[in-house]
């Protein structure tokens, strides 16, 4: 497939992008995969993960990087672009052990840049990225996407000491690094081309802000489901729920509701080691002064208490506190990523004022907390897969 120029436009600007594939064909091939995926869940994925991938492969969702970065596709006419976007070249993607769906999702979005990819996956865990690419190669129709995944995407498993880290950094035009903050710094500190760029997805945590008048059983079930996918291991999972301008009794009432609704929202048992950890976390929380209960069948530990108590840290431990708006902002962790909200009026301008005072990177409805896209951790990283040529006629 030779390079093809695609045009995109917003009401104020037209952009050209040179892509080594036909965009409509690539969209068609990725979305065609959904039809096969809905028939069975891949063994490496949980049902929730697989369902999310299927939803992510919706054509409208896959167009979003282009829409949010360049505008709507333009077919026909005489476009006068103000910029030409050109793929930067090799993208190196470093994934830690046990990384979540963020691995396959990043790869999927990167495939729309047309850049070759070199992906380092964790050295000691089941890996979703390689599993998904293998599955896609076997399931896709013959065409440029299958060819791209087979020939232009290199996935290797090695550890942080391996010399290939150095080689990747030396060759990549873009470094996308998932990992702990020290691991991210270590990769970016490796010798790399002077014009290359580094994109960091380091340690983050998230929380949910709710107003009691906005809560329903349905919204609470959403909160439970969003939390239960990864528990505290997910950087976009809420570790604590803040009842804004609520009382201690409000926090306690919410905690009781969550425990009551838990088995309706999450039907599967958690693994045995999680039940054991939940028992431990329950006892520690109680000893420290939280009002705490286990969800039925020890599926989680939910604790209500005051800001300032030591926060439970178990994988499936969720804490609920009440706070004024100022307290909520003041007690946000410095590495806050997403604030999921369930508010009476999320369009109220006061929320914008409030979020402007925080380091949060996302302020989205609770059910969208895990939704990954071209804007992440504070920037449009996807757009940076291209270099921009200014055009003036």
């Amino acid at each position: 497939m030779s390079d093809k120029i695609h045009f995109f436009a917003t009401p104020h600007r037209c952009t050209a992008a040179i892509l080594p594939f036909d965009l409509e064909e690539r969209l068609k091939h990725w979305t065609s995969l959904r039809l096969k995926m809905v028939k069975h869940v891949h063994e490496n994925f949980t049902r929730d993960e697989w369902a999310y991938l299927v939803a992510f492969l919706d054509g409208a969702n896959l167009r979003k990087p282009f829409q949010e970065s360049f505008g709507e596709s333009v077919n026909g006419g005489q476009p006068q672009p103000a910029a030409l976007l050109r793929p930067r070249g090799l993208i190196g993607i470093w994934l830690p052990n046990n990384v979540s769906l963020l691995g396959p999702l990043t790869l999927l979005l990167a495939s729309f840049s047309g850049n070759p990819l070199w992906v380092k996956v964790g050295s000691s865990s089941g890996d979703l990225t390689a599993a998904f690419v293998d599955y896609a190669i076997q399931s896709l129709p013959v065409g440029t996407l299958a060819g791209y995944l087979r020939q232009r995407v290199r996935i290797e498993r090695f550890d942080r000491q391996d010399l290939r880290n150095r080689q990747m950094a030396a060759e990549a035009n873009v470094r996308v690094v998932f990992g702990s903050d020290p691991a991210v710094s270590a990769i970016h500190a490796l010798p790399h081309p002077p014009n290359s760029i580094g994109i960091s997805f380091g340690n983050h945590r998230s929380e949910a802000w709710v107003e009691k008048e906005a809560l329903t059983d349905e919204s609470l079930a959403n909160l439970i489901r969003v939390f239960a996918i990864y528990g505290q291991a997910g950087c976009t999972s809420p570790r604590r729920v803040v009842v804004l301008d609520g009382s201690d009794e409000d926090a306690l009432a919410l905690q009781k509701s969550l425990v009551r609704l838990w088995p309706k929202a999450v039907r599967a048992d958690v693994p045995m080691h999680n039940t054991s950890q939940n028992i431990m976390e329950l006892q520690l929380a109680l000893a420290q002064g939280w009002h705490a209960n286990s969800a039925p069948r020890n599926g989680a530990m939910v604790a209500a208490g005051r800001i300032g108590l030591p926060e439970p840290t178990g994988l499936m431990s969720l804490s609920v506190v009440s706070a004024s708006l100022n307290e909520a902002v003041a007690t946000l962790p410095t590495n806050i990523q997403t604030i999921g909200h369930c508010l009476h009026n999320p369009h109220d301008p006061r929320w914008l004022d409030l979020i402007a005072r925080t380091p949060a990177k996302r302020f989205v409805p609770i059910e969208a907390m895990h939704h990954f896209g071209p804007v992440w951790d504070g920037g449009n990283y996807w757009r940076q897969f291209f270099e921009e040529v200014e055009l003036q006629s």
Partner: protein
Amino acid sequence: MTNLLASPPFAPRDEAGFLNGMEEICRWHLAGCPEYRRVWPDWSGATRLADLPFLHVGVFKRQLWKTAVPGITHQRTLRSSSTTQSSASMIALDERSSALQGQSSAAILKEIVGDAMRPLVILDSAQSLRQRGEISARITAAMSLRFLASEIHFVLDDVEAEADWDHLLPVLARHQRLLVYGFTWILWRAWATGQIPEKVRQALVQTEVHFVHSGGWKKLESARVDRKRFDAALLATVGPTSRVTDYYGLVEQVGVIFPLCEAGYYHVPRWAGVLVRDPWTLEPPADQPGLLQFMNLLSWGAPYHSVLTEDLGRLVPGDCACKRCGQRFELLGRVPKAETRGCANV
């Protein structure tokens, strides 16, 4: 309690009396330990062992629990030998409990290895004894055999080092019987697969050695060393009447040890109890494996008298071929760890 310790450890016992004793110790800790009281605010009594309060083994890694009651004097803190995977348990030792725990371990060990005095060789470093304010669980286990020791010899400078075989040679020249204690993996590394000099080897094959080990098999599982291979490797180095005894015990329940009998079961002394709980419901399942919970009547300085572990096991009904009375159980390993998936913070 004194009555219980006065009788042999594996003699029959009055079950109602044991339940009453456990109720008494639970009330003691509820009165003297505010954190414990917050965990079990509504408990008022039990009609069965399963209704007694307990603490999960992991809580001892996160905070130091103490029961402050007149008559209890806390001494040193016992620390488990932490691995790189987990932090250490911290147990506040006290005079009253330590005395009972010493009697308990002595009674059980005497039942296992006999009461003849002989040199005790410890495969560990003496340095562990010298830490002020703290004591390691490995050394505590080793030193529980000292009442049978005519002399004590530490033969490792470091647990990763080779044994000091030269130190052992004169001991072997003077004695025909030895007691050797080591953590299971240390005994395997330093003795069973150690480089024993020929002179020492010749002396050992003329010595009756009773190896006693504990600490679990986790580290040997990856090396695919099972009990049969372990015992055979040790016994191949020593005299023909030598023996190997494994026992199970919790750092969090010092003094109570559960010897593995020749029929393959761990036995519970009459001042202790064991329960199995379903991990999801915490109910005791009938004849099914589950999480093991251990109880004893010895622990008065902190609420570690009833501890839910992350070890899986099964209670075995009926009489044991080894003739010991009381409860017995099979150990089925640790709770399996499933992969935790997440983001950068995993």
